[in-house]
Structures are given as C-alpha cells and as structure tokens.
C-alpha cells in the first residue's frame, strides 16, 4: 500500500492509503486497554487544553474553546474523583466513533470519552470540513509530538473516508466498542457491520427536547433574574439555531392561567430582547419559519394562536396536545407552547425519543418523580434552563466512561 505524506495548512498531515485520509494518527495501532483517567491521559488532555487556549484567534469558534475548557485538568480530575467507586476498571480496547456530519464539535467529545475510559480510538470525522476539526486535529498532532506523550500516538486516529461499506466493516470488526451519532438511517447503516462479538455499542440518535417553566415562580422573578433566565434559554436554543438534540422545541407552562399569562408576557419579552441583541437571523431561516407557520395553520388542528415577533421569535400556542408532538419542530427561534395545571397531563406524550427536559421555576425532584412515577420511556436529562447544550460524561442516559470500560471484579 502506498502512503504519501503532505503537509496541509495548519500543520495537519494527511496520510493517505488509498481510501482513508488521516488527520491524526495512521496505521500504527496500539489497542491495549488502559485504566480510566490514568495519569498520562489526564496530563495529555491538560496539555491539549492549554495548546488550544493559547491560540487567541480561536475565539471565532466558541465551541472549540468550550471543548478546551472542558479538557482542563481541574475538570478532568473532578470527574475522576466522582468516578472512583473503589472498583478496578480497564478500557475495552479499540472504540470506533462515527461522528455526526453537521455538529462540528461532538466528534471531539466522543473521542475524549473513549480516550478517558482507556481505549484506543478510531474517529470517523464529519464529512463536512468544519474548521473546528482542523483546529482540534492540529492541536492533537502538536501535543502528540511532545516527548511525554509519544506512547499515546498509536491510540488516536482521526480520519475521513467516503463511507465505503468495506472500510466501515473492517474498522468495526476490530473494535470492542462503537459510538454512533446520527439519525436512524445513519445508525442502521453502520449497524449492518458487526463489531467484536462481546462489543458494546451506543447509538446517539436524533432526539427531542422540551422545557418546563413554572409560572408562579417566574412571575415573582426580578427583572434581572428574568433576564438571566432568558439568556439561558437563548443559549439553549438560538445558539445552535435550535438544531441540537437537547434544544427545546416545546415550552410547557405549568400553573394557573393568570400566572401563565403574565409569566409568558414577561419571559418572551425578555427573550426577544436578548435575541434582538445577539442573534443574526438568516434570510433562509425567516422564509422557512414563515412557510412552516403557514403550513401549520393549514394542517395543525390544535393551533390556538400564533405570535410572530419581528421574525426572530415565532410562537405557536397549542390548545390541545397533538399526536406525536415530538415531530413538531421549528428552528432558529420557533417554539410550540402548551399550558397545564399539573405535569401528569403530558405524561402520555413522552416517548423514547425525548431526551432533555430543561426547567426553571419547578422543583427538580418533582420532575424526577414525574419521570419515574409515570415510568416514562424517555427523558434522560433534567437540567436547568441554560445548560441544555452542556455535554458531560453522562449523555443520553449513558455514563460514557462506564459504558466504554469494563469492571475487573476482585475478591
């Protein structure tokens, strides 16, 4: 097999062996498992974090900076301390990560979870050439060249290919673990090719998320508290054009009608101010939102009223809950709303596609009871408004380090 090396802008070296183009790593492989959070790996991520943070020009990609901040030593050692359960753990071996093609940063988190769990990682990069991929790849390459970390070189492989079945099959066959991000079709396509017989697999499929707001607490909020809440909601939604799986599409208002009416007025007013200040809406998004609202006007029998604020904020008030509410999705500032006196009224709508419930003005233990007592098949995260997009080692109901490592029982 012929290999050619050529430097690419940003110092990324691409190794090409006919089908695979590597941005990090190459054919040299070391698939021996390591203990989760072992010192050299913690140090490595700390060095990676510094390497990225030092480059000021990266400010243009806040997701890269968030990633770097996440990798800093203080955060990783904190995670290590909470992970320590007194048992012995070791990674699985080789893990194949199939990253989503249109979320720039998730490939990096997927990799870090596999890496911290003690695995050698094979990461299929997004097919879209995001600048974030190049930035992180070149930082990784730089850190891997440091003398302290050369032993990690054969544990990290980032590559692209044209999704040929033979390559997916070949990589899968040698892996003890596989993490697949994407829609149903994408996950099913990759699943045609088996991993090792005892392998573990996690599918991060497309999910639906919603927000519960307690009207009584909201009406009592001070102006600055309300502004903070609106900013948090903005970050959960507009920041990613409301396209992240954990971005809410529906706001469930909890409370009596009088409080809800007042809370709505104050909350949406504040949100609109934030959006006006921070969000630049694309013309395409305006046209798409208008088209969607008119289509809904025709089709959606449960529509009550529609509020269009300045094309930045579209609100569709529902008078009743339609079947498959999770299929109603807007983007770039388009929300469905429904009011209930008690949460149990909406228990029947929750199916396994529900992921994140963001909340404000509601007791979180009440929300947890709602999920457990109603024995719901969905809702994997209950987090405060403003943290929907925060990614942690627990994601979609999986503890990533536990899922990608094994326990050695010693008695």
């Amino acid at each position, binding site marked *: 097999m012929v290999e050619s090396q050529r430097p690419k802008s940003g110092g990324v070296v691409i190794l090409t062996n006919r089908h695979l183009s590597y941005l990090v790593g190459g054919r040299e492989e070391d698939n021996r498992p390591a203990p989760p959070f072992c010192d050299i790996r913690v140090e490595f991520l700390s060095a990676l974090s510094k390497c990225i943070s030092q480059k000021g020009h990266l400010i243009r990609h806040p997701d890269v900076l968030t990633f770097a901040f996440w990798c800093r030593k203080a955060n990783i050692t904190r995670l290590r301390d909470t992970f320590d359960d007194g048992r012995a753990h070791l990674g699985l071996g080789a893990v194949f990560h199939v990253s989503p093609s249109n979320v720039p940063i998730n490939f990096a988190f997927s990799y870090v979870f596999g890496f911290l769990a003690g695995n050698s990682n094979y990461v299929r990069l997004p097919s879209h050439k995001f600048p974030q991929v190049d930035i992180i790849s070149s930082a990784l390459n730089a850190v891997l060249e440091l003398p302290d970390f050369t032993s990690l070189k054969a544990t990290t492989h980032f590559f692209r290919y044209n999704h040929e079945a033979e390559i997916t099959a070949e990589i899968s066959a040698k892996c003890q673990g596989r993490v697949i991000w994407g829609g149903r079709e994408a996950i099913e396509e990759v699943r045609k090719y088996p991993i090792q017989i005892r392998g573990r697999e996690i599918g991060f499929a497309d999910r639906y998320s919603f927000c519960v707001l307690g009207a009584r607490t909201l009406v009592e909020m001070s102006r600055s508290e309300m502004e903070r809440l609106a900013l948090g909601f903005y970050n959960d939604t507009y920041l*990613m054009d409301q396209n992240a799986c954990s971005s809410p599409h529906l706001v469930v208002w909890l409370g009596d009608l009088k409080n809800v009416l007042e809370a709505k007025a104050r909350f949406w007013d504040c949100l609109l101010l934030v959006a006006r200040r921070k969000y630049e809406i694309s013309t395409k998004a305006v046209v798409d939102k208008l088209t969607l609202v008119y289509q809904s006007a025709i089709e959606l029998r449960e529509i009550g009223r529609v509020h269009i604020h300045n094309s930045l904020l579209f609100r569709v008030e529902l008078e009743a809950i339609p079947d498959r509410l999770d299929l109603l999705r807007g*983007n770039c500032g388009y929300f469905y709303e429904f009011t209930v006196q008690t949460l149990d009224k909406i228990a029947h709508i929750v199916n396994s596609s529900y992921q994140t419930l963001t909340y404000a003005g509601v007791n979180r233990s009440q929300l947890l009871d709602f999920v457990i007592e109603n024995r719901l098949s969905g809702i994997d995260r209950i987090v405060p408004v403003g943290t929907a997009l925060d990614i942690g080692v627990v994601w979609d109901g999986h503890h990533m380090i536990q899922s990608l490592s094994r326990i050695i029982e010693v008695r």
Partner: protein
Amino acid sequence: MISLVDLLDLPPFSISASAKRDIFRSELQELTHHHYLHCPEYKRIIDLMEFESRVAVDPENVPFLPVGIFKTHRLSSVASSSLVSTLNSSGTSGQQVSRISLDRGTANNQKKALARITADCIGDSRLPMLILDSAPSSATTDRTMISARTAGIFGFGNMGLDRTYAFDENMGIKFDVINDFLNRHRDKHVFVFGFTYIIWEHLVLPLSNMGRQFSIDNGTLIHGGGWKKLHDRSVDSAHFKRSVKNVTGITSIYNYYGMAEQAGSIFLECDQGHYHCSNFSDVFIRRNDLTLCDSAERGMIEVISLLPHSYPGHALLTEDVGTLLGEDDCPCGRLGKYFVVHGRIATSEIRGCGDTYQSSS
C-alpha cells in the same frame, strides 16, 4: 375606479405610482377577501394571522404567502369542476414542485397580460415565431397538467405565427428547419423565444463549439427562467447577450423575471438592465424582519399580481434576493417600480445533530 379588466386594455407600463396605489388597494382587497371566502386553507392562515380581509389596506400590508406553501399544499379558490389546468413549476428531479390551480378566467387573464407585456417588445401584431426548444411531447400537451416550461412556450406562442421549434426531441439543433424558417421570413421581423438556460446549453454552447452561426439580425429574443445554473457557470447577463448575438446576430434581447406561481404578469427587463413591474404587478423588497427595505437596499423579493383569482397567489414572498431601484423614473420611460434580482437566498449550513450517513457516490 379602474379595475383589472380596464388595465388589460391599457399599455402595460402606463400607470403612475399614486394611481396604481389606489387601484391595487381596492383590487387586492377584493382578491384577499375572495380567497378568504373560497379557499379554506387560506382562510385558516388569514384567521390565524388575525387579518381582517374585508378592509382594504395598502399593498405592502396585504398578507403574503411564502411561495414554498404551493409545494406542500394545493390551494384553490374555485370549485374543482371549474379548474381547467394545473400548472407545475419546473424543478429538478426529486425536488417538490408547486402546483397552481387555474380556471378559465385566470388562465385567460394570464394570457392577456402576457400578450400586453410582450407587445411592448415585439409590437401589437403577431410575428413569425422561432421557439428555441423542442416541441412539447404529446404527454406534456395534456393541458390539465402542464409544466411551467410548456406553459411558457404556449403562453408566448399565442403571440406568434408559423411557430417553429428549433430543437429536436433530444435538444439537438434542427439546422434545416431553422434555415427554412429564416428563408420563409427573410427581411421580416421575427419573434424568438426560449428559456435562458436552455438557450445557453443547447444553442449558444453547441454553435460556439461547432463554429457555426445563424443570422437572425431582424429578430427580437425574449428569454426568461432561472439564472442559477448560469451563475454556476459564471455567465452574467452581459456575457449571455454578447454570446447570443455572436451566434444568432440578434441584438434586440429582452430578459424577464417570472414564476409559475404568478404566471402572466412577468417582469420585463429594459435596456437599462432593470426589471419592470407592469400595470398588473408590483414588488416589495423586505428585510429579514419583514419591514420594507429602503431604495437600493438588498432584501427578499415579494411579488404582487392582480391576476391570481383561482388560487391565493396575489401576494407572494419569493426565495429570491433583489434591490428596488426606483419607481416611474427609469430612463427607459416605463412607469412602475423597477428593480434588480441578485439570485436565490443563501442556503446556509444549519447547525445541529443530523444524519451522519450520506450514501457514497
């Protein structure tokens, strides 16, 4: 008050701004209310927007629909028994197309308006006509289901005599047929019609490659249709005109902007390179917050037409970007607003979680 019937008898670019505003206020209110009463889907939209259709408003305040709605919904304001045809917008395979419901009255008004506007370029008498396309096959001549391309050919064809198709069914140039046509009408003014991209792809490029040309020096060409494919090939209007002149000798060339969703009331391009609203149409350019742009400011193009009676398409937000240049004061002398079109709105990359699987090609 002048109505659409009267407008159809007037020269097509003859109404000045203030008179037009009054006529459009009243005509558009009638249309909005008519569609409100007869198209249930439109009624739901208008009710939800809390718009009062019985009150006349200034044209810019008439509720507009995004053209995309015609791709997902068939909206009709007349009984299905009185529909004479469905016009389908052109779309590449796999794309959804618009379906526009036409009754006899709307189809006739489209025909008359188009004739009025075309007469501005070729005069009132019918001329020998060369169509730079292949003859619509019998499958597409079924007028109950008609593509925008066929509709364009038939629509402009009404203004022609001795209609002659320049291409065979494989879009190959029929040299003998064209030369016979030119010999038959030597020294006469001839009317040439075609779609921009088809002219480029099947006439200009092949003739340039072959090093052949025609001399249709006394012809007037009217062409229209999307520029997207030509933009992709870095061909602009000036380049197009120059190339057409080189291979055909035609110097009198008119481009138009139009769409299946408002057939008939096309926007003709004058020799200044400006698209013109006719007596039947108007245009508004909107910012992303839907407020009106200032003159010379870029925005989304909203088109107004007085013709759509059988479907609620009298005010439509297009997916094109344009700039309003002025009203009633174009150096070419035509009254009405004039504007330029910059192309389709950008389809920006959407952020979020999505499919990782794309079939390898």
